């Protein structure tokens, strides 16, 4: 019994159909707790006023935007090394979710920045690298959409994802080098000094857990759809051949 057993699409479908309702339920519950707690039962920040409530959306989505790409990178590597179709399809399913997360992070950030910094957008390193990450997602999705043969598409997008990761990291440092920022430091590092206050921290953790679980659920569902599409395609090809 190993993890790789679930690389078998049939087993994956069976397991994921069991896991999915839990992921949905727990995700919605966590997000609900986090947001309600954060929205109704936390005080305003002394400096930022009530805008601090945006943190429960901004930080988790930003976190997931990066983690989604990281997940795609790992899945791409697994596909290239071990040739498990589920892995390639999971990478494909994660991309739209990642795009949405990046968009949420950018939009909530802009709405937050407007009253706090007096501007919707600054060419700050963090903001800029998120915009760049968004462009990488678009390129990745465009390549998936552009190629007809699914196996070729999986191979090429995987390589693009790996090369893109290297360049995304490079861009991150280049952008740091290119401009000094307005953006706050890390809000969740292990270094306690930098962190946000505890009042905001606990609901934030719930909200993050909710985002993670919903991301998991969406990717799982997306992967199932991709597998089903692939199977339908295989059946229709076989049907045509007869």
């Amino acid at each position: 019994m190993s993890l790789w057993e679930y690389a078998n699409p049939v087993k994956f479908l069976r397991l994921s159909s069991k896991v999915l309702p839990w992921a949905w339920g727990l995700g919605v519950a966590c997000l609900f707790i986090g947001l309600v707690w954060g929205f109704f039962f936390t005080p305003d920040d002394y400096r930022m006023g009530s805008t601090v409530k945006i943190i429960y959306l901004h930080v988790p989505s930003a976190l997931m935007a990066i983690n989604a790409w990281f997940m795609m990178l790992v899945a791409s590597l697994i596909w290239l090394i071990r040739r498990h179709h589920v892995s390639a399809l999971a990478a494909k399913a994660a991309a739209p979710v990642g795009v949405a997360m990046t968009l949420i992070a950018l939009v909530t950030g802009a709405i937050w920045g407007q009253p706090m910094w007096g501007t919707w957008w600054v060419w700050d390193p963090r903001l800029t690298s998120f915009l760049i990450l968004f462009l990488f997602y678009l390129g990745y999705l465009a390549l998936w959409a552009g190629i007809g043969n699914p196996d070729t598409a999986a191979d090429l997008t995987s390589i693009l994802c790996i090369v893109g990761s290297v360049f995304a990291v490079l861009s991150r440092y280049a952008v740091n080098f290119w401009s000094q920022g307005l953006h706050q430091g890390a809000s969740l590092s292990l270094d306690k000094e930098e962190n946000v206050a505890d009042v905001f921290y606990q609901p934030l953790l719930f909200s993050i857990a909710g985002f993670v679980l919903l991301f998991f659920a969406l990717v799982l569902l997306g992967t199932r759809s991709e597998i089903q599409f692939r199977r339908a395609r295989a059946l229709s090809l076989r049907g045509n051949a007869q």
Partner: protein
Amino acid sequence: MMPELGKYAVSVLSAYGATAIIFGVLVVYVLRRSAVAKAALAAQETSKDG
């Protein structure tokens, strides 16, 4: 019921609203794609049997 949001009410609410919209679009997209996939698979499987 509603907490006092002060002068930043518009910002906070629009941030929540925008997130709800983007997230909603994402969820609808994923669910629709899942439905389409299921339908396509079902169509293929029945045509094979028939």
